[in-house]
């Protein structure tokens, strides 16, 4: 299992054609390992006589080799969510392939044929971008079609060869079998019979397998990346090793927008192993023979920075107060199209018997992905071509932005997509600063270079879930029925910083900032959600759950407030509101049963929240907490979550994602806080940006409903229930409403004091 050369020898012609890829072999013991391949190795194989290793590709997604191995292309990226196994498994299912002989290649090119078909078409064609929990949902039909089409091609080829009708044949585990005689040809053998025709057979959905025929889907197949992640052989971005490579580290401006004015590098140059020091527009780079030389050299730099950046005046409470004032001022608008507009709220508010209002404030959050930002680049002598090794959530944007940086064309960028040591949105931005570091330095020194950010740089130069203040209001009629709901979200546009090309095509509709601000499961006749685009006071990014971790904190806390205002049970209140939404109603009812909602419990209280994600998926969560009213400390004892995400392609993995979402969400809800003072990030590492550890985790109880609907996303599902569920439980326990996230002890105490 540890012999990487086993995998290295599996390099195929396809990889040569594509420049580079990472190959994962599935064997009897699971994955054997992973390694990046380079075109030199592949060239050797390409020179072999073609017949000795014939392979055919019935379509862009699958290649069948004479030796019976099958390569399936994976167009997403793998950051622990499991898509690198799930998508190829869907294809293998319809192909009726023997999974033991399948290897998975990560697509490394920016080619619309591999683009995410339902979502990411901001550039006129689909791009490769793994985000928003839309990978399985988007590619499920594509993988089924590709697998079924390849299978049909193989059947047709054998029917012709044997002079029989296709209806007399069947397939099983990478074989075509003549039903009556039992005569069989392996898929590998068929490569000698047929070439791929000009036009491929089309397959109707009715010809797909039915769910009861599935051999792999709905079962627990070991993820291809798991064995390598259990023996140290998995290759993440930071593990890239390139012959002749040197290292670099960049000292960045303490405040965004400042530049180095004067650099004294005498001491740094004297550090053993430092090769060169160069000034970049945004910092000073130290190049060295080793990581430690670059870190020591960087510490020895003396730099005078400019002091003119407008971000110098950014201070958290001041910014948040300004956001709040804008949120509450109903005459204020930033001319964004309404995020959601159902009915007409204005007459409803005018006619209301009672109007309830509340403001919710949330601090920025850091991804705290375990793998610090890093990239390796090798730029050609002319400065116009490059190879890059990077953990990225998006092959397309990495290639496009690298081409922008080198002012070259995308065909001159060769990407080696590596495994991702934590994504959560951190590795989905358009212009990745860490990639720019590696490109600019490699171009300047004419060598391959690996840049590694320290954890402190990763925090200080982090891109964060944005600061937000939200104004919620509801109109109630004389019977206490909610007639209108209005959510005003004052927060920066994430897209306008994080992904400028997409922002330019967005018409000021920011699907990252506003994610989760829509109310789709409750029967409320008039709904409006709107974005008030604030000046950003820090760098901003998509964060796990995208906007929903703060938008749902607001709207699901507020629904709770409305329930209590009516003297209603908060769970039953939601179930009643979801009366016309069977999925939402069902997850609420089921999570209530699991948590034994009505059972009195000594010293502990429950809170509930509902959150859909990405359209089709929906989750309900219940937190059981106790509150120390002396210290303000919240203890979460149990968390129950029920989801409906359609057919469960990989049930065990779904449960893993649910548990992860609960922990990630609770960690944020209870503890995580980025603050900005004078334009600088106050936190620097895991001691002052604490994330949940194993001994802080509650007992977690998850259940995914079983059904036959098309699968939808789970990677971020339910995370957004956590903040509101805990805050609602705190209210149930104490009568104090905490409207600021995270729910830190000082805020709980302040709320207790009223």
């Amino acid at each position: 299992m540890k012999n990487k050369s086993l995998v290295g020898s599996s390099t195929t012609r396809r990889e040569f054609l594509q420049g580079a890829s990472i190959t994962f072999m599935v064997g009897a013991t699971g994955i054997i390992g992973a390694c990046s391949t380079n075109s030199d190795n592949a060239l050797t194989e390409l020179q072999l006589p073609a017949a000795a290793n014939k392979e055919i590709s019935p379509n862009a997604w699958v290649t069948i080799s004479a030796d019976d191995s099958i390569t399936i292309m994976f167009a997403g990226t793998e950051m622990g969510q499991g898509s690198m196994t799930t998508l190829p498994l869907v294809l293998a299912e319809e192909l009726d392939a023997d999974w033991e002989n399948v290897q998975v290649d990560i697509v490394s090119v920016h080619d619309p044929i591999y683009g995410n078909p339902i979502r990411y078409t901001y550039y006129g064609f689909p791009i490769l971008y793994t985000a928003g929990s839309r990978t399985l949902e988007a590619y499920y039909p594509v993988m089924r079609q590709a697998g079924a089409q390849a299978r049909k091609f193989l059947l047709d080829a054998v029917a012709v060869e044997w002079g029989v009708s296709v209806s007399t044949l069947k397939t099983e585990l990478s074989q075509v079998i003549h039903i009556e005689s039992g005569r069989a040809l392996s898929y590998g053998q068929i490569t000698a019979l047929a070439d791929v025709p000009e036009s491929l057979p089309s397959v109707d959905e009715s010809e797909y397998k039915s769910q009861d025929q599935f051999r792999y889907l709905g079962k627990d197949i070991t993820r291809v990346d798991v064995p390598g992640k259990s023996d140290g052989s998995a290759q993440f971005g930071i593990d890239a090793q390139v012959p002749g490579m040197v290292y670099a580290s960049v000292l960045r401006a303490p405040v965004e927008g400042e530049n180095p004015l004067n650099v004294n590098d005498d001491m740094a140059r004297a550090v053993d192993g430092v090769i060169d020091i160069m000034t970049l527009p945004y910092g000073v780079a130290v190049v060295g023979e080793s990581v430690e030389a670059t870190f020591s050299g960087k510490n020895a730099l003396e730099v005078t920075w400019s002091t003119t950046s407008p971000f110098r005046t950014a201070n958290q409470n001041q910014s948040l107060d300004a956001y709040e004032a804008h949120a509450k001022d109903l005459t204020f608008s930033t001319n964004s199209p309404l995020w959601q507009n159902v009915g007409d709220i204005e007459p409803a508010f005018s006619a209301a018997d009672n109007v309830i209002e509340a403001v919710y404030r949330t601090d920025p959050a850091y991804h705290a992905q375990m793998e610090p930002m890093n990239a390796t680049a090798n730029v050609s002598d002319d400065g116009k071509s490059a190879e890059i090794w990077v953990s990225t959530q998006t092959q397309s944007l990495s290639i496009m932005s690298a081409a922008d940086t080198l002012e070259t064309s995308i065909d001159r960028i060769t990407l080696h997509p590596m495994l991702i040591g934590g994504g959560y949105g951190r590795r989905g931005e358009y212009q990745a600063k860490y990639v720019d570091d590696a490109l600019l330095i490699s171009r300047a020194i004419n060598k391959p270079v690996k840049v590694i950010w320290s954890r402190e740089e990763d925090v200080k130069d982090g891109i964060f879930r944005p600061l937000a203040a939200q104004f919620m209001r509801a109109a109630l009629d004389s019977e206490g029925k909610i007639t209108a709901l209005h959510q005003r979200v004052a927060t920066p546009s994430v897209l306008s910083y994080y992904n400028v090309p997409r922002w330019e095509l967005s018409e000021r509709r920011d699907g990252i900032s506003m994610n989760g601000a829509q109310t789709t499961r409750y029967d409320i006749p008039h709904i409006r959600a709107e974005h008030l685009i604030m000046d950003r006071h820090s760098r901003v990014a998509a964060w796990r759950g995208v906007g929903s971790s703060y938008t749902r904190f607001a709207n699901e806390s507020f629904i709770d407030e409305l329930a209590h205002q009516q003297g209603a049970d908060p769970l039953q209140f939601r179930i009643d509101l979801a009366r016309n939404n069977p999925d939402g109603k069902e997850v609420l009812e089921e999570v209530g049963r699991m948590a034994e909602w009505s059972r009195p419990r000594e010293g502990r209280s429950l809170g509930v929240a509902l959150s859909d994600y990405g359209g089709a998926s929906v989750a309900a969560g219940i937190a059981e907490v106790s509150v120390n009213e002396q210290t303000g400390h919240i203890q979460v004892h149990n968390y129950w979550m029920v989801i409906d995400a359609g057919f469960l392609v990989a049930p065990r993995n779904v449960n893993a994602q649910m548990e992860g979402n609960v922990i990630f969400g609770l960690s944020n809800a209870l503890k995580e806080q980025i603050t900005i003072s004078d334009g600088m990030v106050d936190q620097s590492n895991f001691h002052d940006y604490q994330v949940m550890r194993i001994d802080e985790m509650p007992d977690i109880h998850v259940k995914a409903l079983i059904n036959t609907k098309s699968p939808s996303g789970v990677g971020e599902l339910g995370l957004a229930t956590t903040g509101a569920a805990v805050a609602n439980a705190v209210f149930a326990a104490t009568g104090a409403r905490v409207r600021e996230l995270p729910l830190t002890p000082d805020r709980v105490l302040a709320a207790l004091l009223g």
Partner: protein
Amino acid sequence: MASFTINDEKIEVKANPNTPLLWVVREHLKLTGTKFGCGVGQCGACMVHVDGSSTYSCMTPVSAVEGKQVTTIEGLSSQAEQALQKAWVSEEVPQCGYCQSGQIMRAADLLKTNPNPSRQDIITHMRTNICRCGTYNRIIKAIQRAAEEI
């Protein structure tokens, strides 16, 4: 020059004595299974064994392991250690996987001194290691499974 034993092999490394063992292991010796997480002993991603005990390699200068036995994830070989790695696959512990080498090194340390740990023993011992993906439940299960098998 530092000389020590790594994964049963005696080696000499040319490095400044203050160099964190982490960088010697990862970038000088190319044993990249050991990960850089925080550099300050807060997350545990860098854990290796020094003379059999789990140690933050990011906080350990290479001079401190002179003449000692260093084991990395690549060098785990005892029955218990291999049972642990197998349990990690059986329970499908890793998500992004970046912290898991450190988690396994830490868990191996536990099983060496406490072959039948209680759930609470496991939780107390493993609190040194952060997993951002939230695989903690499966870490507990995998350690319990490995303990049962050995």
